């Protein structure tokens, strides 16, 4: 279906429009309505996110040898969306870690049949003690909250098997992402860096990670970057 903007009707009077503009008449603008329209256009859609993130993950992991039934660890997991999506695509089992009771409660509300394959650890990342290392260590919307990234990236490395992979998903710096956070002040809380692909890769390399591939989302309400690392 073709999307048309408001002023593209065939009977729009361009002559009148330019005449009024030439005469210094500024078209009226209901800022509240426009703001609400933009907020609505740029609102989170979990179904769309699943599809767009799934596509990004497929491109990111194309040709990469992921062990059968991989063990996955998601740091700062929230409801574990990234891990649950990876489990949908690659099977396996996972551990979600977050220190937020609200996230844990939210996870329990939406826990689906993957719940049998997921363990939730309600604990701070920096005091995390786990007896195993993982085939995939991942995070979604975590590292951008840290100005100094060495420590948080070290936690990723610490729990990743030597032959395992790390997947980091972060919001990317773009006009779209900036606009998204601008019109959603209720989500724009705390410290958050928006990174370009170049800067993100530089920061990962500076912390001793080896980026293998990076993919940028297409078609979501903000842009995000997914990076596969060793």
């Amino acid at each position, binding site marked *: 279906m073709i999307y048309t903007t408001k002023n593209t009707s065939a009977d729009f009077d361009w002559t009148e429009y330019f005449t009024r503009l030439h005469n210094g008449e500024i078209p009226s603008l209901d800022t509240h309505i426009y703001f609400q329209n933009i907020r609505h256009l740029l609102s989170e859609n979990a*179904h*769309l996110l*699943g*599809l767009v993130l*799934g596509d990004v993950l497929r*491109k990111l992991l194309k040709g990469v040898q992921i062990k059968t039934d991989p063990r996955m660890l998601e740091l700062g997991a929230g409801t574990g969306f990234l891990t649950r*999506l990876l489990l*949908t*695509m690659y099977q396996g089992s996972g551990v979600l870690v977050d220190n937020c009771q609200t996230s844990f409660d939210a996870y329990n509300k939406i826990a689906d049949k993957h719940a049998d394959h997921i363990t939730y650890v309600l604990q701070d990342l920096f005091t995390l003690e786990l007896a195993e290392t993982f085939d995939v260590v991942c995070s979604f919307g975590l590292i951008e909250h840290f100005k100094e990234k060495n420590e948080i990236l070290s936690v990723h490395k610490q729990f990743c098997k030597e032959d395992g992979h790390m997947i980091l998903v972060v919001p990317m710096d773009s006009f779209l992402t900036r606009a998204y956070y601008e019109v959603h002040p209720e989500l724009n809380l705390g410290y958050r860096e928006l990174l370009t692909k170049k800067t993100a890769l530089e920061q990962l390399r500076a912390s001793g990670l080896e980026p293998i591939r990076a993919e940028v989302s*297409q078609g979501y309400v903000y842009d995000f970057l997914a990076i596969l690392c060793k």
Partner: protein
Amino acid sequence: MQLHEQIREFILANLVVFDDDVDFTNDDNIFELGFVNSLFAMKLVTFIESEFRLTIESDEMEISNFNTINNIVNFIQSKSVYK
């Protein structure tokens, strides 16, 4: 089995609500109805690729291809091997 029924069965097997509450036509938007969770779209993509031996390209990963049974069927039929 008809393609429509095959897709309907897959949706019904992945409901997040009780079967008794479910009643939808081939044109109803399954995402807006809240019958499936946010992982379903990707699960459906994987199902279509394996069941119908198709490859779904990045530029085809649009929600409008997968939001109704009719759209899913039309999408599958539009792929060359199913023409």
